[in-house]
């Protein structure tokens, strides 16, 4: 059937202000936070009900039109990059918190609900939603679910996948399915389908609604920041903290470049002369946290820190985190363009990985700022370049690729929390065998026989 027939069918579902087809309207949807990839869809639809999403998917299936679900477009892996002949289903207005049960500690939310809004809605009950990607003030839960987003607190609290109890999904061929339950032991009988769908990058269909687990907000947080003369010393401090049997809620490291950028952006109070900075946070019951914090500060003082700063107030703690969470965008102050990477290495290999990143950066003549979740070995090298210089983007991407392969070589992963998307799909065969990838392709095929849901993401294209 023709494009005209398809668009006219869409116009029977959507009023004109929620069916965008003019180029000026489509530009905003051409890319997500991975701005080096762009594609203009033929239309964007803005559903406000789950039924509209289901009808749209069925229509796409009937007309064999590819579709890309999109929330706030914060994907750093190009996860919501449109396809040229397809449509974008923008889910921001499918954003109702349908139910929040403070006693049973769960909330039922639609895909377009913003991550932080769940915690805000739960706050009056002393509860919160744990996964906290740095984009949490704007990113949506649907995107978090599709890409299994993480954040700074994953070592102790896990990723998005660990906090989703049940889902309602429209599969790519239009069948609506539900799985999981509203028990905190929800996936307890039968295979864990929630686990399979979270992180599937939209390749099976569109999550319409999910039940998320809420946690009691910890009573006490204690945060310490320490400056080191080099990254290696900061890395050794992490090893000694972990080796002592402490389970911090977060362990973060930033290098000079990242620190300087964050300091300039928010005035987080970071020591400027240091080569590396460590942030460690403990949370829990006051009695226990106070005891463990004393031990933590002793360990850090014994680890060769040049300066140790203990956050004394909630405001000081908030400022430390504001600087850390704003580090990516702050790096924009240092360089016109940058590529963010998201590899994972075993924690014990962090020192080796950072030395290699440093060496590669010099080899390519590119500055690399490092911000990372040291507690779980999740690196975020930010490769700085000037896009107006011919070939600079390609060189930056080549360097990024070498860093990813190094992560796999060291026993880690291509991605800790940003997902594979379009950006890393051609590296999948470096991490997985042909058989592993064949099984993934077949799973995609049974859930989406026509290959319409978010095509071009995660699975490597032929020839790689």
């Amino acid at each position, binding site marked *: 059937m023709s494009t005209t027939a398809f668009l006219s069918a869409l116009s029977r579902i959507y009023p004109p202000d929620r069916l965008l087809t003019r180029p000026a309207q489509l530009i905003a949807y051409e890319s997500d936070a991975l701005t080096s990839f762009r594609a203009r869809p033929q239309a964007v639809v803005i559903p406000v009900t789950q039924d509209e999403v289901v009808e749209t998917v069925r229509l796409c299936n009937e007309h064999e039109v590819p579709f890309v679900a999109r929330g706030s477009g914060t994907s750093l892996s190009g996860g919501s990059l449109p396809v040229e002949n397809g449509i974008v289903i923008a889910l921001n207005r499918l954003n109702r918190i349908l139910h929040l049960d403070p*006693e*049973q500690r769960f909330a039922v939310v639609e895909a377009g609900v913003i991550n932080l809004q769940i915690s805000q809605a739960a706050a009056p009950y*002393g509860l919160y939603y744990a996964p906290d990607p740095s984009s949490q003030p704007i990113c949506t839960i649907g995107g978090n679910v599709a890409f*299994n987003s*993480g954040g700074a607190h994953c*070592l102790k609290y*896990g990723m998005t*996948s660990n906090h989703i109890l049940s889902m309602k999904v429209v599969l790519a061929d239009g069948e609506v*399915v539900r799985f999981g339950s*509203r028990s905190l*032991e929800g*996936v*307890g*009988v*039968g*295979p*864990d*389908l*929630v*686990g*399979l769908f*979270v*992180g599937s990058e939209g390749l099976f269909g569109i999550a319409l609604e999910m039940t998320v687990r809420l946690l*009691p*907000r*910890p*009573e006490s947080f204690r945060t310490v920041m320490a400056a080191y003369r080099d990254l290696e010393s900061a890395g050794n401090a992490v090893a000694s903290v*972990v*080796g002592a*049997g402490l*389970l911090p809620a977060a362990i973060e490291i930033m290098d000079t470049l990242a620190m300087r950028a964050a300091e300039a952006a928010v005035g987080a109070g970071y020591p400027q002369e240091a080569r590396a900075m460590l942030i460690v946070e403990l949370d*829990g019951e006051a*009695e*226990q946290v106070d*005891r*463990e914090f004393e031990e933590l500060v002793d360990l850090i003082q014994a680890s060769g820190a040049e300066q140790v700063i203990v956050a004394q107030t909630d405001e000081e703690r908030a400022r430390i985190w504001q600087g850390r969470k704003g580090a990516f965008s702050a790096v924009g102050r240092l360089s016109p363009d940058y590529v963010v990477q998201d590899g*994972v290495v*075993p*924690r014990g290999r962090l020192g080796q990985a950072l030395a290699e990143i440093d060496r590669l950066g010099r080899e390519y003549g590119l500055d690399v700022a490092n911000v990372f*979740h040291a507690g779980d*070995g*999740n690196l975020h090298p930010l490769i700085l370049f000037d896009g107006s210089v011919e070939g600079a983007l390609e060189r930056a991407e080549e360097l990024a690729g070498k860093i990813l392969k190094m992560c796999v070589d060291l*026993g*880690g*992963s*291509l*991605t*800790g*929390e940003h997902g*594979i998307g379009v950006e*890393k799909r051609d590296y*999948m065969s470096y*991490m*997985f065998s042909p*058989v*592993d990838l064949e*099984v*993934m392709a077949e*799973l995609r095929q*049974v859930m989406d026989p026509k290959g319409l849901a978010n095509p071009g993401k995660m699975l490597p294209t032929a020839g790689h």
Partner: protein
Amino acid sequence: MPIAAHHPAEIPDIVRSTTGRLLPVGGGSKPALTRVHEECEQLDMRRLSGILEYEPEEYTFTALANTPLQEIETELAAHGQYLPFDPVLTGAGATLGGTVAANSAGAGRFRYGGVRDFILGIRFVDGRGRLVRSGGKVVKNAAGFDLAKFMVGSLGRFGILTEVSFKVFPRPRAFLSFAQRYDSLADALAQATRLACSPLELQALDLVPDSDEVLLVARLGGPAASLGARMDRILRFLGEQGNARADFVWEGEEEAAYWRQVNEFAWVPDGMPLFKVPLNPACLPALDERISHTHRRYMAAGNLAWIAGDDVATLEHALNDLGLTGLQLLGRSEQLIIGTGLAYPVLRRVKQVLDPDGKFPEV
């Protein structure tokens, strides 16, 4: 005579050459799961045992699927670490693979979650004899479809696990448990719910109905010196006046032994069917009323029920009426899964990929 696998590399051939159906069997600690009614051959997995990699500073280990949990727990304990979800039936010989396939977590799942929250990666052989890897060995990973989680609770219906990687945590340096008596389940549940919503951190929070009272059992973990004060604080939170003492307090070896018998199901009479029922605490009173003749224990503040009784029909009716599903682990009842069942339409799609020729039992 069951076939035995000696090495992961043999399993693809075993799967391809089998003409009937195969069911992998590990330690046999959950007999209800390894008894199948259709024409089905058991594949003895016990030789696929041993820890392959364990780096305590990484908080991760990788082991062959049929490594006994006892061996793993001993090794972890030597480094001050543990699997926080309290795998069950360890003493009865439960293996890592069986724990994943049955999704069997005990009282400790209250604190940090269950099997799905600690599994990192797997290798398995699917029904077409392909050796497949999914997930990874590092604590954070978002690459590819997560079949490692899918296999949690898969009951050997989608593939044969050969190798599993897990995240572990530092073990609290000391534990203390105590219990309070309540007259009714409603009272005990209301208190458990208040506790579970509070920032007071418990390793386990169980409700144990007995003939005319219900025990609320709480387990604390952490630095030894803080435990007494933390228990007193919880007692005050529960509304006890002044210097009230808990009705029961367990410490040291006695405390460890108490939880061992809980997680070994020593409280279930021999041969009696035991069902695991995940549920929402809101429907617990309605369920409990209808199964007052059973032996039962509610874990994770009422999110996970373990119910043992010979009258399976009554339990089944109650589960159906309340929209719940139960999985049998112990005993000789005919039905493995009772109640409202699973998400079959999606599972059938996955089955088409991983077991198109029906080499493993039906879901």
